[in-house]
């Protein structure tokens, strides 16, 4: 019935062409847990928030290819190499799903990439840490992808339809990413003392940055409250972080590895694991551009884009020539208006 009410509200908005009525219709649709679709009226701030979040998400996927691709040529077996290539290819795919979804809001692929390359849009600060050993590939899969999944599963119910649909696809694929990482660490954990130490070292370095992936504490999170009202976000940063810690502790035990936090212990009263304070100074520094790899990641990204320019230009030239010969149907770059 809530759904019918939302539809009626939209109908009324059209009749009166009153801005306030449009806003009430939008609010009613969100309240009724309906999805907002590209051609619906939406508040400018809602659109801007989504573009910012989806762009950052898409950028994270393609920048995230770098730290792992770093190990493709040095994977210890053909099996591991094939797995890693498939995973890195998935990350590219996730970036593309998200760029497409962001474009339904009226921005363009070129504009998004341009903003990434010029530093005007961000990507997740986790990818500014280096992958020093092979075990880092495992730690990234288990912890970084694990944290990402914890963040992303609720996004499958995000109020913006195209974003939610992209997330459903992404979450299905992320599950393999996390499991391959866990299996990799398990293999190292059962190996020589050196291999075991390498696995422990990687977990030690990735644990805290993974906890930071959930963003600042709730009382300091700039966008959280509004995003929750709009149902872009369904759970608070601290809530998701706690969920992640609770999931990881027993998983670490099964691996035979420890998590680098002396304050980590089960709290019977809360029914959750307590954990130590997070170093938010480090988080802010990395965010500001002072992480170990910020410069390297952006430089490599820009270079890949520039060095690929001739491929894009040749393909466009070939298509133009072919089109003028065959008089093929319209190939205008028009977007948006017809997006379903």
């Amino acid at each position, binding site marked *: 019935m809530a759904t019918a009410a939302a*539809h009626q509200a*939209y*109908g009324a908005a*059209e009749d009166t062409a009153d801005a306030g009525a449009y806003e009430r219709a939008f609010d009613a649709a969100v309240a009724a847990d309906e999805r907002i*679709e590209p*051609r*619906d*009226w939406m508040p400018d701030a809602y659109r801007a928030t989504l573009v910012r979040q989806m762009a950052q998400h898409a950028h994270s996927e393609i920048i995230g290819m770098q730290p792992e691709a770093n190990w493709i040529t040095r994977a210890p077996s053909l099996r591991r190499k094939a797995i890693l290539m*498939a995973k890195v*290819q*998935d990350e590219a*795919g996730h970036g*593309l*799903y998200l760029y*497409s979804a962001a*474009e339904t809001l009226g921005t363009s*692929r*070129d504009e998004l*990439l*341009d903003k990434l390359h010029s530093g005007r849009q961000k990507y997740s600060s986790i990818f500014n840490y280096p992958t020093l050993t092979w075990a880092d590939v495992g730690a990234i899969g288990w912890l970084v992808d694990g944290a990402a999944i914890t963040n992303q599963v609720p996004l499958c119910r995000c109020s913006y339809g195209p974003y939610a*649909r*992209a997330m459903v*696809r992404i979450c299905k*694929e992320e599950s393999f990413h996390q499991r391959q990482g866990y299996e990799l660490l398990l293999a190292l954990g059962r190996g020589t003392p050196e291999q075991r130490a390498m696995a422990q070292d990687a977990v030690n370095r990735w644990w805290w940055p993974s906890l930071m992936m959930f963003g600042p504490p709730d009382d300091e999170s700039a966008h959280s409250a509004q995003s929750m009202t709009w149902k872009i976000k369904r759970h608070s940063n601290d809530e998701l972080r706690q969920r992640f810690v609770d999931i990881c502790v027993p998983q670490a035990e099964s691996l035979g590895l420890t998590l680098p936090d002396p304050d980590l212990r089960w709290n019977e009263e809360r029914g959750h694991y307590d954990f130590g304070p997070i170093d938010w100074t480090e988080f802010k520094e990395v965010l500001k551009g002072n992480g170990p790899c910020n410069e390297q990641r952006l430089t490599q990204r820009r270079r890949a884009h520039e060095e690929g*320019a001739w491929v*894009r*230009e040749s*393909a*466009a030239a*070939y*298509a*133009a020539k*072919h*089109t003028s010969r065959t008089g*093929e*149907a*319209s*190939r*205008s*770059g*028009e*977007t948006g*208006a*017809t*997006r*379903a």
Partner: protein
Amino acid sequence: MTNTDWPLWEVFVRSRRGLSHTHAGSLHAPDAEFALRNARDLYTRRGEGVSIWVVPSSAITASSPDEKDPFFEPAADKPYRHPTFYEIPEGVKHL
């Protein structure tokens, strides 16, 4: 900024024989041939499809700029088009 000339394509995937093609998403490609290959790499990496259609987004005509409007209203006031509209005595079978 060299992507500008690559139009947007909508991708439809038939997940298995016997089912219709369903909208999977969209992508940029310079021409139909590339759009098909990119669609295969992007939307069927795990055997999600046995057939793909790609359509230039600009070739799609949509019902209206708004998703809910009087266009669909004629269907709303005809409940007698649904089988549940009719009252049938209990015990009558195969109806």
